[in-house]
């Protein structure tokens, strides 16, 4: 549902006379490695640079949900063919006024991490180390695969009153350029 919503909203926004840019999230040093136990692991260093609007919202207690979308599919797959791998790593960043700390919560694993500064929190958020993608044995060794990684701020997770305006303001459209890599396992 979120994907459909995003697609429709994206189509509408595509028609708006506003030049949208996606330069506030940078994927750096992305690498796929094969572990000794035969798993393909993802390492990535993601740089976040929040603009004033988003930073202000964060400082005022608005939780920000970032989603890292990892997708792997056959290189010559038909459009209707399902993905070989699809991971959605969702992490919430919020600010605690009492302690003045920034918290990271991993929605899938209920993990809490506290940080004294926003930069420290964002650094940890952007540091993906040895994330298991798939076991090599599950892939066809004679075939090419496309791995695609994209990171974006999930507008749909914002408090409801903020969503309509967030869809209409370019400041809230924070996402990385998709990173794609052709892989022969």
């Amino acid at each position: 549902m979120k994907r459909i919503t995003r697609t429709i909203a994206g189509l509408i926004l595509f028609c708006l006379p506003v030049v949208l840019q996606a330069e506030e999230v940078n994927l750096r040093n992305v690498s796929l490695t094969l572990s000794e136990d035969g798993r393909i692991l993802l390492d990535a260093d993601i740089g976040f640079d929040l603009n004033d609007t988003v930073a202000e919202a964060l400082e005022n207690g608005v939780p920000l949900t970032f989603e890292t979308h990892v997708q792997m599919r056959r290189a010559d797959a038909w459009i209707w063919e399902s993905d070989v791998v699809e991971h959605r790593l969702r992490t919430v960043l919020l600010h605690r006024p009492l302690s003045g700390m920034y918290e990271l919560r991993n929605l899938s694993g209920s993990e809490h991490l506290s940080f004294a500064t926003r930069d420290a929190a964002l650094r940890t958020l952007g540091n993906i180390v040895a994330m298991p993608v798939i076991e090599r044995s599950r892939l066809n060794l004679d075939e090419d695969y496309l791995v695609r990684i994209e990171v974006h701020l999930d507008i749909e997770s914002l408090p409801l009153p903020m969503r309509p305006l967030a869809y209409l303001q370019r400041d809230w459209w924070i996402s990385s350029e998709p990173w794609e890599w052709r892989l022969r396992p």
Partner: protein
Amino acid sequence: MAAAPMKQRRFDVVAAAMLVMLLLASLHLISAAVQRSEELGQWFIPLLLFTVVGLVMLFVLVGWNLWQLLRDYRRRVAGSRLSARLSALFLVIALVPVGVVYFYSTRFLSSGIDSWFDLQVDSAMEDALSLSKVSLDLHKRERLKLTQNLLATVEDTSQTAVALSVDDMRNATGANEVALFSLQGKVLAVSHANPEIMLPTPPDSGMVQQVVSGENYVGIAPGQDGRLLVRCLVQDKQQRGVVLQVLYPVPESLSELIQSVQDAYEVYRTRAYMRSQIKFSFALSLSLVLLLSVFGAAWAAVYTARRLVQPITDIAEGTRAVAEGHYDKQLPLPQVKDELGFLVSSFNAMTRRIARSRNALEESRRKLQTQHNYLETVLGGLSTGVMALDAEGRIQTANRAADQILGLPVRELEGKDVRVLGMRSDALSPFVERVAGGLEQGIHQGRSEITLYRGGGRQVLLFRHSPLEIGRGLAVGHVLVFDDVTELVKAQRDAAWGEVARRLAHEIKNPLTPIQLSAERLRHKFLRKMAPEDGKVLDRATHTIVQQVEAMKSMVNDFSDYAKPSKLQLEPLPVDAFLSEVIALYEGAAQQVVMQAGAPGLTIEADPVRLRQVMHNLLKNALEAGGADGPIVVSSRVGEEEGNDFVEIAVSDNGPGFDPELITQAFEPYVTNKTKGTGLGLAIVKRIVAEHGGVVHAENPVEGGGRVVLRLPAMAQVLVRTAPEAPRLADKGGH
């Protein structure tokens, strides 16, 4: 006829109603999503999009309806003005209250949201948070001091000794976790309340950096169970190269209070931050409701106005159709039986009645036309001329026989005064004088005989006139009835002449023979006995008597011939051979007689003796007419008139020709321009020819001389069989 538009309209109504219902449901769900964002929040944007798209569709629908209304208005379509006025009225009635409600709703909403956040509440929330911070800071300082003391109590200078005492430290302080790190960040020892946890809660690099630089760290960290922890990081003052981290649980009562304050503050702060967005969301929802109301009202206004006006439109169109002559126009009855329905059914009844009347009228007209045609046919078939005049003497109608008898296209002069006939033809003056005189003198009824003198001869008309009455004694004109009785009069005269001739012949012929015999006897008896002188006188006298008696006999024979009842001995007669035979008798005549045979092999059915008499009379006349130059020409030719073949025989001479004044009466008895003769020659010719079914006339050709032309019917079958090569001339009818 109106079924298709009706169906279309019903479909439009259902579609629009469904759209409005869907939009209402969507707006309701949006409202629910706003209120229960946790459950339905994910549907908010899709519902919003759906509502916007639906409203756009509704807008298009309304726009289309309004455009149609405007177009009809400009084209002055029947009922469009009333529809437009009603639509505008309904729209205003609907929009004004909706607009008022919208205006005040947005104002109340805006001020209501603003009232959530005022300075006092802001300040109270800030104060509560500060109080919590102060309280927590006090607790943090105590814990930091405790931690410093803990590290100081370990007197052993080795790291190992410190590491071995972490359990004691945790037990002594009631801490959740005690961990010892080297300055490089390496974990030297850990003691956790939960023995299964072997790894310490890692401090972030900023904290470690702070401690390494000589300043101890104390801060709040969230615990796994949601309870607050105080994190203390202290550096060893005894230079053992270790950093001690202790995580103390904040006392439960304090933690709950602080959490409560923090949660409330966070909610308040977030809401305060989102104030404008909240206002926008509410305004957006309200605006969508407003737009739905406005579009729905506009559509309903146009639809209702059209539906109300439809019967009136139908009646207007129906009236126009009736005005244009479409009397069978029937209007669709409205479904609702109201006054308009009564009006429409009354209109339908009216048009039905008009249509019936029109049909009856049409039937009457058709019957009248039939009668008129019948009368025309009867009048046209009459040989009697009939003419109707109005009271002023203008020609109203005339039949074909009138044209033929008067020799003028009388029917083309309808509407003109009857005196015009006299202007067109002088010969008709007696006729016109009689009619006009009758009109002027007020003679409305009468019978008389009118003689017209025309180029073709005398024409006798039997004339009757009577008033034209259309009711009892109500005369609106005159009816003139006239017959051409010329031929009848002529026939009567011929018959009278025949009788005279017969009696004359009978009375005169009888004494002639005794007179002649007596004269011859006198001469025979006394001529020799008389003296020569007397004898001469006697001889001359008796000779004269005998000669005159002979002449009288001849004359009486002519009379007898003329009066003799005909007993024709008809037989097939080859025309050219017959003519040659007759002409042969004139070979020694004073003038040459030439034959121009033009009907070789043609046979007629005739009495040769009587026909020979005809030819002798004609040739005798021609010889007597004289003319020094040129021969007498006898010609024959074949002709056809109205499908009947005939043979035409002409005898031409080079004499002075016929007297133009007498030419039309040349064939009447005792009409002659000769000094001698009985004047019966041509009359006998005419009689014999008539007995053979033919006609004869005299003419003066332009080249001079006179010509008598007689026309006899040919024997058709003989003509076809024997004379294929015969020259056949179309009759010009001018002889």
